[in-house]
């Protein structure tokens, strides 16, 4: 335990020293610091030691109508360098994106399928997820009778909790068909949330706090809801059981209902994105207290550093809970919406 505390302390000292090195001379820009962390980038920045920047270069994949497909390493574009006419735009409409400057001097964006920091993080997290689930499943393939212990037991606890208390309750009869999808969504979000909280290399990417990721998840849920919708579900949307003046000359209720069909997955998308992004932002903001207060003298800086570490640690604990809650809420609401779409004809009618 003491050894561990010593190691943490050492890491802390190193990080403070490191940060001091970085930002002591220049004015610390909190906004760009935070946005560069929660946003995406073409290389995975790890740290800076002295003058040397340590980062993982990632493949850039671009498809342009003039140049065709070009694949190269992102380190070629470091610090504003240009390669084959491509460079990372610094400001304007395409800030921090790769643009192509044509002969006429006009900038345009090629189709950008680069494996960015978030893409790589997604791939890593997916691999983690696959390893976790498949290794648990392989245990069940071997042993069919006894109850699992340790890791598999923990996985079973999580899986069966979601399966029995969320999916089964929300969808009801015939839930088995949807359980694999909802469990995949739950563990996908959970693993991505947890990995996002690890502050160094294989983790730390803001995947579930990225709108593209939550958009795909919400789109999948939307597709499942729509495809599992019964006749009664669509009837209640297009011709709801309300006084006919609310739907005949002006389709008031149908319009509201159709709007509701899209707001449900939209809310799912925004909720997950906003929660995770906000968590990252708060932690980064608290961390940047260390660097912001450098200019205020050693004593203030030291005090604020202590406070910042305490608050960051507290926020990380909160974020651990949030990571689980958001995965849970997304799964629960998806299950509830699917359950609602499987509505049968009411007995009252």
């Amino acid at each position, binding site marked *: 335990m003491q050894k561990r505390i010593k190691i943490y302390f050492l890491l802390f000292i190193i990080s403070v020293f490191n940060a001091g090195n970085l930002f002591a001379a220049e004015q610390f820009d909190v906004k760009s610091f935070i946005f560069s962390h929660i946003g995406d980038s073409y290389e995975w920045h790890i740290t800076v030691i002295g003058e040397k920047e340590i980062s993982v270069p990632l493949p850039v994949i671009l498809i342009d109508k003039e140049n065709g497909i070009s694949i190269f390493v992102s380190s070629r574009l470091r610090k504003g360098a240009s390669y084959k006419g491509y460079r990372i735009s610094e400001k304007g409409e395409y800030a921090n994106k790769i643009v192509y400057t044509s002969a006429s001097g006009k900038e345009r964006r090629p189709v950008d399928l680069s494996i960015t920091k978030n893409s790589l993080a*997604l*791939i890593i997290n997916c691999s983690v997820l696959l390893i976790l689930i498949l290794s648990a499943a392989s245990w069940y393939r071997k042993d069919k009778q006894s109850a699992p212990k340790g890791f598999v037991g923990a996985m079973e606890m999580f899986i069966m909790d979601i399966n029995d208390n969320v999916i089964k309750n929300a969808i009801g009869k015939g839930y088995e068909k949807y359980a*694999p999808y909802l469990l995949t969504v739950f*563990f996908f979000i959970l693993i991505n949330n947890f990995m996002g909280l690890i502050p160094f290399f294989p983790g730390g990417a803001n995947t579930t706090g990225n709108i593209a990721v939550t958009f795909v998840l919400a789109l999948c849920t939307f597709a499942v809801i729509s495809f599992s919708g019964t006749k009664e579900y669509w009837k209640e949307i297009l011709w709801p059981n309300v006084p006919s003046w609310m739907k005949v000359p002006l389709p008031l209720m149908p319009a509201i209902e159709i709007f509701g069909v899209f707001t449900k997955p939209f809310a799912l998308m925004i909720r997950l994105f906003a929660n995770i992004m906000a968590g990252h932002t708060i932690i980064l903001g608290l961390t940047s207290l260390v660097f912001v207060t450098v200019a205020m003298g050693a004593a203030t800086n030291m005090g604020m550093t202590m406070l910042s570490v305490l608050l960051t640690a507290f926020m990380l604990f909160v974020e651990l809970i949030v990571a689980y809650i958001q995965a849970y809420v997304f799964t629960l609401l998806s299950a509830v919406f699917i359950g609602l779409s499987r509505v049968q004809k009411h007995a009252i009618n």
Partner: protein
Amino acid sequence: MSLLVPESGLLFWMCLSFGIVFFIVARYGFPVILKSVEARRVFIQKSLDDANTAKAMLENIKSQSDSMIASAREEQMNIIREANKLKNSIIKSANDEARELTKKQIESVRIEIQNEKEGAMRDIRSQIALLSVDIAEKLVRTELKESPAQMQLINKLLNESSPFKS
């Protein structure tokens, strides 16, 4: 604002990785786990039910054996009682029979004795008769020598007693 616009590259990689993960995990991951947990649940329920049935059966058997023992004991008591009764009745009937037999024997002996007695009496009587006849003969013989009147008497007597009347 750029935070709210989904990036096409990331969308592509997200679709790809999530699709692959979903395909693999929903086919080889979760169904295996859910199915075997369900199988285990069924197995546990079955085991519990079996245990309960076995317990009930055991109790049933126990009560059955108890009742069997009780009935056997009852039977035993009955048999003993019956045997006692039989014994008593046999003894009684044997006694009765013996009494009857002795009675009969005594009776027959008495009859025999009576008969014997009667026979003896008859014998004695006939002996006495013979004796008296002898004596009478002797008497008569002596007297006959003396008088012919005696001869007349004899003939008269003979006539009186003999079945063959002249």
